[in-house]
């Protein structure tokens, strides 16, 4: 067992698609919260496998995309300071800020380095004791504990020049914010698999209890997603929305206790600024007082001009599920992965990048409909 190939069986996928089609009678709208799901859904042609009654929308689950422009501007301003090394996940490099990007700052002489892991950032800090090594901390609950672990490690090893700019965001509060906004009526949510490895399924209970919306947590292989869709359709058809885990090999109801403890140790919950949504109370993580000497929000003098959003870019609407990438006038014309206008086209998890890359490819599985390529 490799826990990958087994969940890509095309015969089973086709049968699951038929099952979904046979069970679906009324029109419903689902949102996949996670950008990883958007990519998997597009890559495997799952939109073409579901009946017309099932509408699917991408949500805000792309960490790079939801990072507010002002936070990007902050990272770029920090990069321009002397004796600073910026370390970041690669996706952040090309995201346009108001006036520049990390990539452009690097070309202009700033020391900006792409890392795969916070462990690499710590190593750079060990090797450069005379410089401040700032990690741009973007991500959701999946990534937050890895950043917490790096801060605890820096504390234990006395790595005093390590800093984190925390732009970390929390999933359940933004789901609540979207449901409260009510711009898009949702019947069900495809719950984020790897966020849920950390937080479990319990924090989503309000979705079905308070909003009557179904929520099924899914893995990322085609069969995982089809199983999740099948459960969602059946719940909604039966009028019994609840929270279910369709990714049981990875997700426990209570999550990963050790990871949650580390997050609790290092962070405090605070409001966070989301692109397209604005400030959502209690939806972000800031470094707490005990570890504030690692906080890049403190101890650096930077001045920021007011943030500017790219003209015509509909990333914000796409992140709220109000529009699909195809409804943006810039999509595929002035905005492409080579020349991205907004972050949804840059990030490997961005909805626009997924639509651009896979939008016209046919599904490798046999759809349960004849002559209805969608």
């Amino acid at each position, binding site marked *: 067992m490799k826990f990958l190939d087994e969940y890509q069986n095309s015969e089973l996928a086709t049968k699951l698609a038929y099952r979904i089609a046979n069970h679906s009678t009324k029109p419903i709208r689902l949102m996949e919260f996670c950008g990883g799901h958007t990519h998997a859904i597009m890559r495997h042609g799952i939109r073409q496998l579901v009946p017309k009654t099932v509408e699917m929308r991408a949500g805000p689950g*792309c960490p790079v995309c939801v990072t507010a422009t002002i936070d990007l501007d902050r990272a770029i301003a920090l990069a321009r300071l002397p004796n600073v090394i910026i370390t970041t996940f690669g996706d952040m490099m090309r995201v346009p800020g108001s006036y520049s990007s990390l990539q452009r700052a690097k070309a202009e002489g700033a020391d900006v380095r792409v890392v795969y892991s916070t462990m690499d950032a710590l190593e750079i800090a060990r090797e450069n004791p005379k410089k401040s090594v700032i990690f741009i901390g973007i991500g959701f609950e999946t990534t937050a*504990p890895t950043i917490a672990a790096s801060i605890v490690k820096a504390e234990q090893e006395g790595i005093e020049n390590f800093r984190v700019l925390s732009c970390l965001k929390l999933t359940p509060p933004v789901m609540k914010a979207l449901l409260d906004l009510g711009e898009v009526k949702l019947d069900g949510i495809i719950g984020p698999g790897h966020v849920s490895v950390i937080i479990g399924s319990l924090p989503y209970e309000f979705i079905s209890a308070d909003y009557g919306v179904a929520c099924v947590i899914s893995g990322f292989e085609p069969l995982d997603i089809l199983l999740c869709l099948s459960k969602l359709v059946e719940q909604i058809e039966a009028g019994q929305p609840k929270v279910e885990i369709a990714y049981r090999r990875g997700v426990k109801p209570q999550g990963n206790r050790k990871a949650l403890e580390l997050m609790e140790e290092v962070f405090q919950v605070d409001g966070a600024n989301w692109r397209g949504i604005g400030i959502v109370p209690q939806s972000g993580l800031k470094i707490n007082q005990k570890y504030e000497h690692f906080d890049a929000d403190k101890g650096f003098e930077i001045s920021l001009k007011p943030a500017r959003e790219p003209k015509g870019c509909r990333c914000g609407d796409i992140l709220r599920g109000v529009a699909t990438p195809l409804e943006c006038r810039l999509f595929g014309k002035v905005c492409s992965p080579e020349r991205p206008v907004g972050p949804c086209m840059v990030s490997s998890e961005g909805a626009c990048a997924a639509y651009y890359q896979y939008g016209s490819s046919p599904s490798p599985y046999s759809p349960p409909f004849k002559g209805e390529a969608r």
Partner: protein
Amino acid sequence: MPGAMCLAIPMRIASIEGDEAEAEIGGVRRRVSIALTPEAKVGDYVLLHTGYAIGVIDEAEAKETLKLLEEIASFSEVS
């Protein structure tokens, strides 16, 4: 895959040293942190995200899901 933010891939733990481990998939080996999964043992599959094992894969549940998929599929009419 730098910047793949919420992606995690299954890898098998080959050896453990303190809070670090050597993990392997398809002949590729890499050093990973098991600071978030102290319960991980040699031979376990973990979900690896940005260099950290964020969860140990539950093999019994994995088999259970595959059985469920087969069952569901066997009741589906392909016409």
